[in-house]
């Protein structure tokens, strides 16, 4: 199969302070996902009406109500502030996950195989970056009430390392789970799609076509569930930092 590569911008490889690789293809795919998300939402919001809602409008309204209910369960009466965040996250991750299921362009160029169209969430830096951003956001929201926030860390005092250690699984469950699911799904789709190439056309199509369509259908399902779980965990992690009446 060979190494599948992305176009990478290398910044400061001379051993300076700034030393990183920027995945330009993943950046472009992220922007494409943003454009598709914005287009979906704008198309749904065009010609909105109370008496005769269009199909897209009804779907978005249903989803808004659904996430509002979950948010109220997770964070009590301050929930409505975070419904737009939840809805944006869900639609963006949903679109991003399905992009790689619908198409996956690989082009052979010189030495390596370059991948030009894939799910941005199948890149570790994108998914883990989103996870880190969400955890940071939850701490910033907690910091709007500094007294309670710092008191939570040290009650009781010996629990402090455990509270600190508690943040690592959050990164794993937010970022790496999303990346792992989508990445593994894409690799398996690629393997199945390359069966006619590696086994010969007749045998490849005969053995690969049923698993290929089954796995594609399952990937559509997985993409939706993962988007939902990411949104749910985001709401719960932010809700933990907001003080509520029934504090545990």
């Amino acid at each position: 199969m060979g190494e599948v590569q992305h176009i990478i911008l290398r910044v400061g490889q001379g051993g300076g302070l700034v030393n990183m690789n920027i995945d330009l293809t993943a950046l472009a795919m992220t922007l494409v996902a943003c454009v598709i998300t914005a287009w979906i939402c704008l198309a749904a919001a065009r010609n909105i009406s109370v008496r005769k809602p269009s199909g897209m409008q009804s779907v978005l309204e249903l989803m808004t109500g659904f996430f509002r209910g979950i948010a109220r369960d997770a964070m009590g009466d301050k929930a409505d502030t975070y419904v737009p965040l939840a809805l944006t996250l869900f639609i963006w991750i949903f679109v991003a996950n399905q992009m790689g299921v619908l198409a996956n362009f690989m082009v052979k160029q010189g030495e390596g195989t370059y991948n030009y169209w894939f799910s941005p969430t199948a890149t570790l830096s994108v998914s883990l970056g989103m996870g880190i951003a969400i955890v940071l956001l939850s701490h910033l929201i907690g910091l709007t009430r500094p007294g309670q926030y710092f008191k939570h860390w040290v009650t009781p005092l010996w629990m402090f390392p455990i509270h600190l250690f508690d943040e690592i699984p959050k990164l794993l469950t937010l970022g790496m789970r999303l990346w792992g699911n989508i990445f593994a799904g894409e690799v398996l789709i690629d393997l199945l799609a390359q069966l006619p190439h590696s086994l010969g056309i007749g045998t490849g199509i005969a053995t690969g076509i049923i698993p290929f369509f089954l796995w594609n259908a399952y990937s559509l399902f997985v993409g939706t569930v993962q988007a939902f779980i990411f949104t749910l965990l985001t709401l719960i992690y932010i809700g933990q930092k907001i003080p509520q009446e029934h504090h545990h």
Partner: protein
Amino acid sequence: MNLTVLAMGLMFGLGAIGSGIGIGIMYSRYLEGIARQPEAQGRLSTQMFVGLGLVDALPIIVVAMAFILFGQR
């Protein structure tokens, strides 16, 4: 035989065993909960999905790691 392939197989298999047991226990308790209190299904299923996300995370990370290992072989 390449040892990387053996390692991949072990990673897949052990990950599947662990997460299978975990998800099985969780789902059976979820069904018991619904059977006892059908009106709690909404809240239970939300919590169940969170648990699914947590249990699911580790084996799927391992599987993705195995694919990366396979690519760098």
